[in-house]
């Protein structure tokens, strides 16, 4: 669970003064999204785990440079994503992994979405294929915005691009998906 913002700034402040337990709480609150973001960028679980670990340690060391009162999550995601990108670059792998849908039986158990929509198996495969056929940069922006449900600012931080670029790239990617999926 993500703490309420006022709790979070208090935790950041305590961590900045060297309170390791406060920082551990921050890590627990954000490790899920940090790891999933790293996974998208690094392309495999072990690099993602290392990237998330190193990112959290670097963020802790860099807390002195964190602007008090600003949101912690985009700042953190930027550091973790940078670690993940560096790992992928150093191994020369392609930019983003091809996403796979979870096995059919487990999706049946999944909680219904707030919108009350369940994708039929065939639609799901078709949409996933369309996402995977996007260029890397468009697939990443779609994955950040809709799969990880990052905000535009968080997506910009994670992908190291400007918010304006997130907006234009998202709408271009949606157009391409519409063509492929329609």
């Amino acid at each position, binding site marked *: 669970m993500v703490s309420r913002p006022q709790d979070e700034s208090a935790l950041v402040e305590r961590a900045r003064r060297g309170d390791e337990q406060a920082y551990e709480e921050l890590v627990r609150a954000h*490790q899920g999204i*940090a790891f999933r973001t790293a996974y998208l960028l690094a392309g495999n679980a072990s690099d993602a785990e290392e990237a998330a*670990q190193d990112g959290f340690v670097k963020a802790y*060391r860099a807390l002195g440079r964190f602007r008090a009162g600003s949101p912690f999550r985009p700042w953190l995601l930027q550091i973790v994503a*940078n670690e993940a990108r560096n790992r992928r670059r150093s191994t020369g792998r392609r930019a983003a992994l091809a996403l796979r849908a979870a096995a059919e039986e487990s999706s049946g158990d999944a909680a219904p979405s707030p919108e009350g929509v369940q994708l039929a198996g065939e639609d799901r495969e078709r949409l996933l294929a369309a996402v995977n056929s996007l260029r890397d940069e468009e697939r990443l922006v779609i994955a950040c915005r*809709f799969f990880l449900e990052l905000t535009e600012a968080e997506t910009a931080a994670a992908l190291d691009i400007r918010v304006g670029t997130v907006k234009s790239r998202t709408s271009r990617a949606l157009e391409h*998906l519409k063509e492929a999926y329609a």
Partner: protein
Amino acid sequence: MPELETALRQLGREVELPATPDIAAAIRPRLERPRSWRRPVLVAIAVALVAIGAALLVPPARTAILDWLGLRNVSVVRVPELPGARPLGRLDLGERVTPADARRRAPWLLVPDDKPDAFYVDDSVPGGRVTLLWGAASGPRLLLTETTGRAYIQKVVLGDTNVEPVDVGDAGVWFRGQHVVMFSDRNGVFHDTRSRLAASTLVWQLGGLTLRLEGDLTKEQSLRIARTVG
């Protein structure tokens, strides 16, 4: 379009992502901050005094100012003349290992964004010492050495060597120019047989780690690299 966005969000819930590992527990040891500086400093002073008397054979009258620059595990001895010391040889760095092995043997290891060409581990230094090397082993471009709070480093510098506190990590010092570097053995003793000649070096402290970056770099270049480490 909203329909497509809704479908994408739904798909996101069904995309297979690996379970998140327990990152908080894994990094706990790496967050440790120094709690008290007094005892390590006293130990280091004792160690350094032994070293000055026994290992370096610097005439006592002409020794020696010890500079304590806020680095808990590093002592600086100023001498009028550098003791004889070998240049860097491959053995100084220890055993060459894979990056994965280095991380396994030294879980506290920090690796900068720019990936090193080789990793070395030396278990004869207390707590272990890892050296990351860029360039060729025969003539490294850059060395980053990392040790824990159990290792002591001694820098033997000429009276006029520039030794300057810098702002990096918890505390940092820039050594401009050639000097001699020594790592203590398991008993905390420095041996001149294990000393070697070093180029300009940045030494800094990050939590429980001591890092030293050595190469043909300016102070600014060294600081820039150091800040990408952590």
